[in-house]
């Protein structure tokens, strides 16, 4: 059954037509606020591990539903516990839910067999492809083209300092 579920989930493309309902928990004690900012009013004080359902995200905040209320918490205080994929096919709605435990624990790497796509063997045995490298190069854009593209979305570069990292200034 589980295997069938994975196959099914794999077949569902992650597109705009596919909605994901995420449930989870807050992993620290945190206040549920009525606005997505720190000056919002406290609706409820949540203890670590309080279950929540994520409604939407805005900036660095997530709107969540608890057993009693709907409000906002910082996105980084949430750990997702389960995901429900809702897919509309011919007007019908199939809902597949997989509940998983142990979230927030230090999970280690899963099995290394059965990797689809890139795996060690295919990389080790691969020959260099000049043709693909040339194709890659053909997509390259200049710094100025990229800057122009960013402006069309209203993006502006900001001065932000690194934290916890030393980066040497060089080319």
């Amino acid at each position, binding site marked *: 059954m589980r295997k069938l579920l994975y196959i099914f*989930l*794999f077949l569902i*493309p*992650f*597109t*705009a037509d596919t909605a994901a309902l*995420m449930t989870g928990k807050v992993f620290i004690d945190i206040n549920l606020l009525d606005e997505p900012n720190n000056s919002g009013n406290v609706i409820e004080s949540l203890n670590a591990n309080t279950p929540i359902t994520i409604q939407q*995200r805005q*900036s*660095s*905040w997530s709107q969540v539903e608890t057993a009693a209320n709907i409000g906002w918490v910082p996105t*980084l205080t949430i*750990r*997702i*516990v*389960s*995901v429900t994929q809702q897919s509309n096919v011919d007007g019908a709605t199939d809902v597949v839910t997989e509940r998983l435990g142990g*979230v*927030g624990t*230090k999970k*280690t*790497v*899963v099995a290394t067999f059965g*990797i*689809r*796509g*890139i795996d*060690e063997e295919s*990389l*080790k045995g*691969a*020959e*260099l*492809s000049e043709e*693909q*490298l040339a*194709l*890659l190069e053909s*997509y*390259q*854009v*200049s710094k100025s083209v*990229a*800057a122009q*593209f*960013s402006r069309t*979305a*209203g*993006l502006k*570069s*900001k*001065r*932000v300092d*690194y*934290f*916890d*990292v030393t*980066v040497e*200034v060089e*080319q």
Partner: protein
Amino acid sequence: MKKLLFSTLFLLVAAPVLVFGYGISLDFNKIKDTLSATQNLMIEDNLEQEIEIGRVISGRLLGAHNLMTDKQLQQYVNKVGRWVASQSERSELQWQFGVIDADSINAFSAPGGYIFLTKGLYQLLNSEAELAAVLAHEIGHVVQKHQLKILKKSALIHFGRLLVESTLDQKQSGMAMNNLVGYGAEMLSRGLDKDSEFEADKIGVVLTARAGYNAYALPIVLQEIGHAGMNNQSDVRLMFKTHPHPNDRLDELAPGMEGFSGDGQMVDDRFYRI
């Protein structure tokens, strides 16, 4: 530098000889000659060589998995990636970005400014900011020369072993280089150490914010990947093999994220969906 290099190699080569008393006679003139022929290859900071190493590793990756044929997609990713890379300390590199046709969920970088993500990872993303964040993490590896540093270490050990055997001629030095590039390709599947990954996350958040995107885009992607991983889909297995678990990465990022208001843009309206 040369002196230091020679001392290091001497330790690598001569120490076992002295300690264990192997009866190998080393031709130090030959070693010196070989060093002058090979040290520039791997030891010195040389941009041209870094790019060439990255090109060969990338060529092998692309030999295993081709680029997606969607030209618009590739150009879009290059524009976003180049803009993010322009915010870095290595903005003048000839950055190249590609989406490879693989269902697995992962991203890779190679020395010199080569960045790749898989179709599987791209399909998990919901906004341009999330794409920028994934690319920014990989750009972070190139900025810090994480792969190059490991390759250099590997080069020292490899050349050291060959020098012990005192048989390093031009042909074998070529083979050594080949092996090294092979090691680089293998590194794409083995991954870097945890600290390098955490460092790249922190650089990634900053570069994303510098580019005007929402700094929380990377944590959001990590949460998405985290729940994909919980489903134990085989597509994320390599990601978990090459990177620490997303929850560990989120824990590592959390204290530093307090300084970010999250006022940057997500840019989901023009995000190119596949």
